[in-house]
Each structure stands twice: as C-alpha cells, then as structure tokens.
C-alpha cells in the first residue's frame, strides 16, 4: 500500500532493514553486532558455487521475508515437549520464557543463565566475552551474531557436574518470525553435562531458526549433546555447532533431523589435545519435498585423537538428504583413529540422498576408514515379514525402524529415545502417511 516504503530487493537488503529497525543501545555489544552484520552483508548468503554448499540451494530461503523475533509469549504446545527430559529452558521464537523454565538452583561451580539475562545485566561483559570467542566465519554465524538477543549460557567449573540433562526447547511459530539463538557451553576440567536441544515448530509456521552452539571442553570434560530437529514442514532451520576438545575430553553429538522444508546442520569438532574423542551420530529422514543437509567437519589437530561418525539417511517421497563428512588430519597429528560410516535408504524412486565422505590427511601414521552405502528396502526381508502375517506397511515400518535402530540405540536418555521411537513409528506407520 505504502509507496514510500523502501522495496527490499536482495536478501541482504531485507536483513539490513530488519537490522536497522531494531532499537539498539549505543554500546560495545551493539558495535560487535553491527560489525558482524557488515561482514555478513559483504559475503551474503552462501551459494552452490561454494564447495560446502554444493548440494543445497538456498533460493527457497532467500526469497522469504521473515519478521523480527518478538519477545512476546508465543503459543506453546507443551504436548510436544518431552516429559522428564531434564531441566527445561524454553526459548520461544528465540526468547527465553522464564515462566516455563524448570531449572532448579544448582550446586556451586555450576552456572546456568539465559543470554538475555546476561545481556540485560552486563552488556559490556557480554561484549568482552564475545570478543574472546572464536571468530564467526560463516554467513549464518555472522547473521546470528548480528541478530543476537538470547540463548543459554552454561558454565561448569573444574569437576562440576550438572545434576540432570539441560533440556532446551526452541519453540518456533506461529507466523514467520526468525530466531537467532546462541548457546555457550564452557566445561572446566573433568566437568560433565548433557545438553538436549529440541527444535519444535507450530504447524504451518514459516519461520527461520538460525542457531549457533559453541562448546568448549577443557581437559577430561565430557559432554553429551542431542539435537532433535522437528521444525514445521514449511520452516527453515540452520544449525551451527562448534565443539573444541582439549586433552582427554569427550564430546558425543546425536543429531536427528526430521522437520523443516530446508535444513542444514553444520557440526565442527576440533580435537585439539591428545586423547580427545568425538562421536558424531545422526539420522535424517526427508520426505515430501524436504531438503535436509548435514555437514560435519572433524579436525584432528592433535596426535592420539579419536573420531567416530555414523550417519543414516532415510528419504521418501521427493525428499532429499545430503551428508558430507570431512575429516582433516593435521601434519604431525599422528596415531589418529578415525571412522566414518554413512548408510542410506531410499524409499521412493523420486527420493535422493547425496553422501560424500572426504578425508584430508597430512600425517602418515593414521588409521582412517570410511564407507558409504545407499540402497532400498530389502525385498526378501519384506517378503519374509509379510509371509509371517505382517501387512506391507507394518513390514516396511519395521525394516525402516530396524535401519534407524543403530542410531536410536545410542540415545542413552530414555525419555528422548521413546519420544523418537514414537515419532518414527508415526512417520513410517503407513504408506498414506508417507504420501
């Protein structure tokens, strides 16, 4: 209606007008955000010309106009939350809702607060902290930095343990808001925690989640990280995870991607001290016209480090899955043990999965293995089950579940595993549901 309104032409312009519209105080944090935005504006969104984005076209995302995330309470759908999953923190469209949180007072040495609280209390301190962080490199990390408002800060002193899993619910929608949450996890020596991230979208919402999680594990620290992505089928999800592992620390990430029209998860694990061990396991199941992309980078920067990756993809309808796993073994990083496996199942003739393990090895005393397979459901097994009285749908569902089982069985949190089994059962229960 208003002819005077500036007409945004490119996605960078659209994000700039959103950025400029924000009332930000004049402080160091705002300067940091602005610098990040300018770096984002200079490089723009990634294109398929970039090797890391070869299989994922962002046109669907680029054409969208998102509204700024509002701190106003959104319609939450508690029935979709996992009961008894841990100390709950709800980020509704990226903003922490204290009223829904169930975090109990923690023992000394354990700090858990929302980033929003921290920013409100001491923005200068936050700015100082952010300056010291690893420099954001990718378009989406920069965009996240520019729009940074809220998130979670977990800080464990040496030897500290969080008494239960930290269950962060990223509740998105309704509407077309965008959210740029950030989670910082700092684990002191021999400390341990479990972080569960659950991304949930209201039906029919067309949101953008662009999250960044950075984890810093000091010597001997242990972190179990679960990501369960169930955004609405019209939404976009970009997730970036950076884990930095010092000597003898252990990081395990289980990444389950079921939702979103277009999703990309980028996980980097840097093994910076001898004895460090990273385990990355994941399951992605695109159906309909979903496009689910996973990119992992394991950087063996120190000798005597271990990595184990196992990803499984199940694609149905016209769904498309992408798994690319890169392993770098730095010069002088000897005695490395790295394993990578990618197994994929195509349930329809129009489904597609691209899988590509990549190894870059600059040391000579290393043990690296990788393998990738893509196939269809075994027709003999299908017949076997049907010959015992099971319907075709039931037999298919069982075989798909069996395929996913090696990932599901690694989930040690019982409520989470049960939730996931139920989700997969519903999804693969009948051919009608697969349409």
């Amino acid at each position, binding site marked *: 209606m208003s002819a005077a309104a500036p007409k945004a032409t490119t996605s960078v312009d659209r994000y700039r007008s959103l950025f400029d519209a924000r009332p930000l105080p004049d402080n160091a944090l705002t300067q940091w955000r602005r610098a990040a935005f300018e770096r984002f504006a200079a490089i723009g969104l990634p294109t398929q010309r970039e090797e890391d984005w070869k299989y994922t076209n962002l046109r669907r995302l680029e054409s969208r106009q998102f509204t700024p995330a509002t701190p106003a309470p959104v319609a939450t759908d508690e029935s979709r939350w996992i009961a008894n999953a841990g100390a709950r923190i709800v980020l509704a469209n990226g903003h922490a809702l204290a009223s829904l949180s169930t975090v109990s007072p923690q023992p000394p040495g354990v700090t858990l607060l929302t980033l929003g609280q921290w920013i409100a209390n001491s923005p200068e301190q936050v700015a100082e902290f952010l300056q010291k962080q690893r420099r954001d490199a990718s378009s989406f990390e920069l965009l996240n930095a520019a729009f940074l408002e809220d998130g979670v800060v977990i800080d464990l002193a040496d030897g500290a343990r969080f008494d239960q899993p930290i269950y962060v619910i990223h509740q998105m929608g309704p509407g077309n808001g965008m959210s740029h949450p950030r989670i910082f996890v700092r684990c002191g020596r021999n400390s341990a925690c479990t972080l569960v991230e659950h991304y949930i979208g209201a039906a029919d919402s067309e949101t953008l989640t662009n999250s960044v999680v950075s984890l810093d594990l000091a010597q001997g620290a242990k972190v179990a990280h679960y990501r369960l992505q169930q955004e609405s089928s019209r939404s976009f999800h970009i997730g970036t995870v950076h884990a930095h592992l010092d000597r003898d620390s252990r990081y395990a990430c289980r990444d389950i991607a079921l939702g979103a029209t277009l999703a990309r998860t980028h996980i980097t694990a840097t093994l910076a001290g001898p004895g460090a061990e990273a385990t990355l396991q994941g399951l992605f199941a695109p159906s309909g016209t979903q496009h689910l992309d996973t990119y992992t980078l394991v950087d063996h920067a120190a000798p005597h480090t271990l990595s184990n990756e196992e990803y499984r993809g199940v694609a149905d309808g016209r769904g498309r899955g992408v798994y690319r796993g890169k392993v770098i073994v730095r010069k002088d990083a000897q005695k490395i043990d790295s394993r990578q496996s990618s197994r994929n199942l195509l349930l329809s003739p129009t489904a597609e999965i691209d899988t590509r393990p990549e190894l870059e090895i600059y040391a000579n005393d290393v043990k690296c293995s990788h393998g990738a397979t893509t196939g269809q459901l075994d027709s003999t*097994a299908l017949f076997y089950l049907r010959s015992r009285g099971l319907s075709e749908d039931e037999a298919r569902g069982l075989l798909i579940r069996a395929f996913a089982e090696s990932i599901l069985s690694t989930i040690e949190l019982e409520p989470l595993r049960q939730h996931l089994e139920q989700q997969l059962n519903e999804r693969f229960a009948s051919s009608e549901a697969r349409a």
Partner: protein
Amino acid sequence: MLKIENLQVKAGDKQILKGLNLEVKAGEVHAIMGPNGSGKSTLVQVLAGREGYEVTGGTATYNGKDLLAMAPEERAREGVFLAFQYPVEIPGVNNVYLLKAGLNAIRKHRGEAEVDAFEFLSLVREKMKLMQMDESFLNRGVNEGFSGGEKKRNEILQMAVLEPALALLDETDSGLDIDALRVVANGVNSLRRQDRAILMVTHYQRLLDYIEPDRVHVLSGGQILKSGDKSLALELEKRGYDWIRQGAAAA
C-alpha cells in the same frame, strides 16, 4: 485343502512351471523331490506369494479360495506358512516381536483377541524347548548371526507358534547336520495333525527317513512326472531321476 491345476509360472523370460497338478488333503504330508532347477522352490514360493514370478496359467485353490489372488500376508493369516530355504537375517527386528506380531495378525484375522503377553511367552518357551533353542534367542534380531542350523530351527519354531493349516517347507533339511536334522524333523512331526497339511520340498531322501510322507512326487522340467507312496523316494535314492525322465519322454 490345496488344489493346484495346470499351474504355469514364469520367472523373467523363463518358463519354470509348465502345467503342474497337485492335490493335498488335510492331514496329509506330501514330499516333492526332483533334480536341481526343476521348479521345486518356485512352486512353494509362488504358493506363499513371493514377488518376481508371473503366473501365466492355471489355478491354485486353498480351502476353496483363489490362493494366487491373495497378498502374502493374507495367505499367512489364512493359515499358509512357508519355511524358507534361506531364512532372512533382519538385524534390529526382534525375534520375539516378529513371532508376536505374526501371531496377533493371524488372531486378529480370525476375530480373536490379541495374545496375552504372559501366555505368549510361556508358549514360546515351550516351543523353544521342543526345538532345543537357547534362551538368548529371545533377545536377538530375527536370524541375526544364527548358524544355518539355528535358522532352520527358528523357521520350525515360528511354524510351531503360528500353527498354520498348510505348511510349505522349502529344503528345510539343507545345510543341517544329523543332530540338527533330528531336532527339526521332530519339530515338524509334532505338528502333524488331522487338520493340517504339510508340503515339503527336498533334494534328499534322508529327510523322509525322519518325516514320513504320505505321498511323494517327482517334479522335473516344471511338471510332476510321477507320484507314489514313500517307496518312490527309496527308488529315487537308488536309481536317480533319469529313469523317470526317460519314461516321461517315451510316454
């Protein structure tokens, strides 16, 4: 119970069964013997509903119903059971789960209630004893990591639990040592009943020492060339198949 008339079956371009006739009555045990490639396995697989075969002519009627028009699971629910020559390993699907799902599918089809969990487990334990199977079997994946003999025992265990009206045994004796063969045969014999028919396909006469058939048929070149009682099997053991084939060619 089962009546096959002039059954003709193709696999790809190859005609495997060329007008096969066979009638099996309730309470009877029939053995089908024949040289390699004669169509024995094709016959039982087609009867169980395996895809990949084309029925080009003839009929198979089971209890008055057109067997060939039914989906594999419908046949199973109507009481047809195939013991596979090569039972499939399905890691991630629990053995007991499959048994229970199969039994409940059949019960539901008959309009019966689902089996009580406790009753079911004691039924499975009893049948496992019969088949001399280890307790650890209960928590394993379907045939996962089983030896050849264990797989065949598992087939008969499934048969014992599902209690079919028509059991099709596809070379159930192949790959078994003599002890395992005794266990398997004992399991099958315990399932012989007035209202149950068994059709077994085998290569060797030795199975018939343990499971005595009422009728023996020789399948060769896609047709049944000769039928008789169990003495026919002994004659085949002595003389091979050539004399039958020559006799058929002469006739």
